[in-house]
């Protein structure tokens, strides 16, 4: 209780005021459609939602050294706490949609194995093209969020090449992941290759902020289906939260190791140079 009273104060008011200012600016900018026309009249278009402007403004301010490192570190655990409101909002759509969820049950369960798709795409790239050595294993076996770091730390230690791999991919995800997923999902929504339900399930891939970014363009494009979309994404995300760690540990990692042995046999590996600054990274356990 003493600890609680000592820490329950507004000494960190700057973080919250900054958050308010960024949020208001982002909401006022609103949704912006961006189109890149390709050769032959084709091209891709996507929308940037206010939430992406919020993260972009933060990163730009950080890059310009306008935010103190202390402020950045204070804000980090707040992501995991503030995201819980969103989880409530998403999950409350499951009950009313339970009939659709049961009907889509097999799809929801089987698409969890889609998370292994990371390995099939990124392992060949890491081993055959970049010749990253065992760092490939750390970077390619998952989307490198907090549970993956825990797995690598336990199996290989974070000092080795596998550790460099997972930490490198982790910081990439922190800095680029949300915006990347926001744009990727927006492109897929626009391309109409997949049914919105499938994209909703795909959005629930483990990290809360990435889920948010991948889900938003879908809800934005199909407001009439919003309830079902939320229900599917939320169920998929809950499943991933429950099975993700075991899926990675029992299937993902052995599969990655096996592929590494296959690929690296005839392709000499260069490895990557370890990054010293990785020791400074603080990983929040709450933001799983």
């Amino acid at each position, binding site marked *: 209780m*003493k600890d609680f009273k000592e*820490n329950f104060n507004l000494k960190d008011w700057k973080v919250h005021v900054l958050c308010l200012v960024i949020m208001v600016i982002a909401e006022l900018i609103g949704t912006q459609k961006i189109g890149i026309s390709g050769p032959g009249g084709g091209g891709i278009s996507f929308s940037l939602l206010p939430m992406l402007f919020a*993260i972009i403004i933060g990163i730009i301010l950080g890059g310009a050294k306008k935010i103190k490192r202390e402020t950045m570190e204070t804000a980090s655990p*707040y992501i995991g*706490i503030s995201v819980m409101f969103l989880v409530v909002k998403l999950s409350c759509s499951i009950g009313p949609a339970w009939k659709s969820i049961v*009907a889509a049950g097999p799809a929801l369960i089987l698409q969890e194995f889609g998370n292994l798709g990371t390995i099939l795409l990124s392992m060949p790239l890491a081993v055959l093209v970049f010749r990253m050595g065992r760092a490939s294993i750390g970077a390619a076996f998952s989307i490198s969020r907090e549970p993956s770091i825990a797995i690598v730390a336990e199996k290989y230690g974070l000092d080795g090449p596998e550790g460099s791999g997972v930490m490198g991919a982790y910081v990439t995800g*922190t800095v680029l992941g*949300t915006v990347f997923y926001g744009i990727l999902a927006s492109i897929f929504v626009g391309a109409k290759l997949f049914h919105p339900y499938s994209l909703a399930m795909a959005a629930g891939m483990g990290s809360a902020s990435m889920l948010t970014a991948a889900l938003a363009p879908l809800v934005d494009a199909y407001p009439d289906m919003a309830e079902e979309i939320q229900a599917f994404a939320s169920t998929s995300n809950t499943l991933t939260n429950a099975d993700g760690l075991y899926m990675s540990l029992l299937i993902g990692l052995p599969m990655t190791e096996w592929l590494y042995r296959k690929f690296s046999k005839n392709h000499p590996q260069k490895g990557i*140079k370890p990054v010293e600054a990785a020791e400074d990274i603080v990983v929040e356990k709450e933001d*799983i």
Partner: protein
Amino acid sequence: MTENKESMGKLWASRIKVLLISGVLASIANMIYEWRTHAATIHMPWEVFPALLYMFIIVVVSCLIHDLVAKLLPVKVPVILYVALITTILSFPFAGWFAETMKTEFAKIGLLPLCTPILAYAGISAGKDLDTFKEQGVAIVCTALVAFIGTYIGSAIIAEIVLRLSHVI
């Protein structure tokens, strides 16, 4: 990587504080969002207070259960799993009043504006990894991004096939 050891008191202080503040932030974002998108009704921040209060209670109860389970059993489950499960149970028609109230109250606060403060915090904190990120080679950044594409497309393909085979879509 440095281990973040926090006492329970400190953890709860930031939980309660950030929940209260981000609730207020979300209600403001919601108002701006509705105003900007010319929504039929624009909810003032205090009008979504009941929704945020119910959310707050669910989250706090989930955190309590999480902490209790973590203390008693050797299982590691993220808090948001409890939040999701408890909310899901309450949202079923058999939960009666809860389900009804949640449905009407939560509808007043949009999903998208609810996300904006979260990602504003994420943007503020992302800067701390920026220097480490700049030191990463092209190889690792590309591998990570391709891994992101992989899980999204992998899940979408399987979902699409199974949904079609089972005639849901």
